[in-house]
């Protein structure tokens, strides 16, 4: 399974995503520059963490206009899996590919710490390999990760079983402890925590691999290859 890691000028977790997938998961991965209008021959997209265009205006507000985002939108429309991590999640909501918005943390401060996540649904290509309600340890590192949406949207996310992860101890004020959500078609996941930073024992946790392994498993089930 070939992963494409989108690189905006201010992406700074692009190499981490590449390293997690390529070295710790053992799958091929390549970088895709933000002004590319096509994605090439890839099976999954990762929108990595960072500060895409500096994000002085609003996180992801400029990135959504990048040529590559048109390609990502088409890729998702064709059913391809798209994983947005941290800034990637912010870009996905700005681009309207996921509902809601990400606001300043309740503390108004950047927070970097390990958190525990409770897996909310197993019905997605990102969580299929997890256990029911499995607790995953991985870090957060963001200043604007407080997930907000109107009541109707939140109810719908829950009734559609689209809350992929919730914080066990809510670090940033996110509504209903939401850490990650799926789109209606369940092939786009945005989450604030960093699974790529939890992919080997030296990082302090390997729990993030559950997400990447799920993606590989789902791809194999969808299109068995020799």
């Amino acid at each position, binding site marked *: 399974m070939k992963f494409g890691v989108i690189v905006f*000028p*201010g992406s700074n977790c692009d190499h981490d995503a590449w*390293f*997690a997938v390529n070295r710790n998961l053992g799958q091929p991965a390549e970088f895709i520059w933000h002004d590319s209008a096509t994605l090439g021959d890839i099976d999954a997209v990762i929108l990595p963490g960072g500060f895409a265009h*500096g*994000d002085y205006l609003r996180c992801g507000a400029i990135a959504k206009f990048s040529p590559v985002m048109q390609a990502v939108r088409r890729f998702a429309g064709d059913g391809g899996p798209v994983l947005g991590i941290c800034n990637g999640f912010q870009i996905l909501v700005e681009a309207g590919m996921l509902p809601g918005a990400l606001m300043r943390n309740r503390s108004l401060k950047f*927070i970097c710490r390990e958190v525990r996540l409770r897996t909310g649904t197993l019905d997605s290509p990102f969580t299929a390999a997890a256990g029911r309600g499995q607790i995953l340890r991985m870090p957060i590192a963001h200043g604007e990760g407080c997930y907000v949406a109107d009541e109707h949207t939140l109810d719908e996310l829950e009734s559609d079983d689209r809350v992929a992860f919730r914080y066990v101890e809510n670090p940033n004020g996110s509504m209903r402890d939401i850490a990650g959500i799926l789109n209606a078609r369940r092939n786009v996941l945005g989450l604030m925590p960093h699974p790529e930073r939890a992919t080997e024992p030296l990082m302090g946790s390997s729990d993030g691999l559950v997400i990447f392994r799920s993606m590989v498993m789902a791809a194999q089930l969808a299109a068995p290859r020799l």
Partner: protein
Amino acid sequence: MTSPAVTPEIVAQHQLTEAEFRKIVGILGREPNHTELGIFSVMWSEHCSYKSSRLHLKKLPTRGKLVVQGPGENAGIIDAGGGYVIAFKIESHNHPSFIEPFQGAATGVGGILRDIFTMGARPIAVLDSLRFGPLDDPQSGRRNRRILQGVVAGIAHYGNCFGVPTVGGECVFEACYDGNPLVNVFALGVAKKEDIFYARAAGIGNPVIYVGAKTGRDGIHGASMASAEFTEESKQKRPNVQVGDPFLEKLLLEACLEAMQTGAIVGIQDMGAAGLTCSTCEMGSRGGTGIEIELDLVPQRETGMTPYEIMLSESQERMLLVAERGREEEVVRVFRKWGLDAVTVGQVTADGKLRVKQHGRVVAEIPNRELADEAPLYDRPHTEPPRAPQRPPVNHPPAPDSAAALLALLASPDICSKRYIWEQYDYQVRTNTIAGPGADAAIMRIKENGASVAMSLDGNGRYCYLDPRAGAMLAVAECCRNLSTVGAEPVAATNCLNFGNPERPEIMAQLVEAIEGMAEACRFFETPITGGNVSLYNETLGEGIWPTPVIGVVGLLKTGAPVTREFKTAGRAVILLGGVGRCDETQFGATQYAKTIWHDLWGAPPALDMDLEKRVQAAIREIVAAGLAESAHDLSDGGLAVAAAECCLGREGVGVALHFESDLCSEHLLFHEGPSRILISTGSPDRVTEIAARHGVEALRAGITMNAGLSIGNRGTALLTLPVDKLHAIYEGALEEQLRS
């Protein structure tokens, strides 16, 4: 536009003495014009020229078997093995951080990062050594809290966006930093050995290319500001502080590293202090060449800038590079890809002069070497450093019980957890952080060569105030001990020397003694100084800071699971490597106990036996390398009791029962700060003892880990007993509580 005439008043405003002015006239063979005067004033400022300290800095050891590049470049470089090198350096941004804490600290980070990637190295770690005035002072507490919040937010803003993890450092509070906070930033990067770049202008006729942000009027005279004392008017110098743009710096990093790969770049230097002036004349001086630039070609943010303003601007996120003639386009193409300006503004010449033109007319012409390297050199008079009283004042209140004293120390801002600060830093980005904030030393793996590098910053103004020479030696010893405790072999160092006004003989004496102490210790521990920074005139309204030399040591180790300070398992033997140590009334006056419990300071710093220290460090490295230490933590501020308490604060909440047979009184036993001691827990005490014996080091079997809190006794008497959750709550909550008050 006509530039002002150069009058004696104008010369004085530029902080140049009459003798310095005469020297300038001698070099030029005529009087300088206003622009030239400005150029000389920044290059010959204390900040850029080290005119008061250079004579003494020569005493520092700078060579070692792993040193690839010593002082004189943008950063020092050592060989990290496998064809890779690490570049590292520390720099101060004290003055700007007082005037404008957020931008001052942010641009401090930006400046040191450029120093690293200028050398061709990608930054992988930042550490900060911070000093503030007391947070709870009735008069200045509010301001000090605001400065701390601003500095921390500035560091976070810049480092997080740039994408470099901030993985450690120190944060200390003393009244002497009230009007003069210290912000020292250390950065470290990795490069391939054959891809190191130097700041030299070579090849007559090669183009000089300006890249990065446009030049504005910000930061004019920043270097001179950093070379003067503070007065009431200093706040008006806010416009002298530059504004940082970490996103732009990130673009500059990626573009520079990518452009370096083209092979078309001959030399490169960042525009830091003294901006375009410094980068042009220093590159020319190092290359033995001249540089001619046309200011009309310099990208400008504002209109109507004078040559004086353009040459002295300290606008951030700019670089100057020399490319191979005919290959400019290859370089420009890379910068364009990253959306950055890259403009040829001049060329390398043969005449050794910095020639600045505007509208085709020469507006400044100065020989590079004289300007960059022949700044005045002062052997400033130095007498004796001021001394504190040698005996403890007799009117101390009775000592509180030991448990209360320990809790007070754990809650004191110097010792308590700095989590509130470091959780605002992304300390993991790039996934190389093996041990981050809160550890004795930070450990970063180098993915490229499979090795790891450990690093730590240390300084102790209290010790150095009492005895600058001994204090500096203790700082080096402790910094090396921090590295050894995590299993790393210290190999090289960088220093940041923060002092008051060197024109005062007693302050100059502090500087001289501290440098000499540092030199002796660095020579002994074989950690040559590969670069650093001197920050003088740290005074406000005539009140100087304590002498605060900060040392950053780097060490190498094999990549693997780190040995951390917290106890992991109940039932392990606990060994105090180095034994209980020595202390007397005089040395107790330097401790955190004297500071926190008695609000006092007297006597002398702890006695350091360098030979013993070296053996203790060799022993712990061998113990860690053999996998025998389940935890290890060196004793420092607050002594044995604080170290033992810190070891109990792991996720597992494992405590310890320690018992001693010591002649020391209980305060001294628990809280003295004698060096050369490390507390470890182990499942193999006999093997640890055997290794220690081989190094001639005492391995005192002091107790056993257990799930029942912390208890310490001496000669059959319990000195203190405390539950772990209480230690935890006080240690973790103290800083935030002080900041909220």
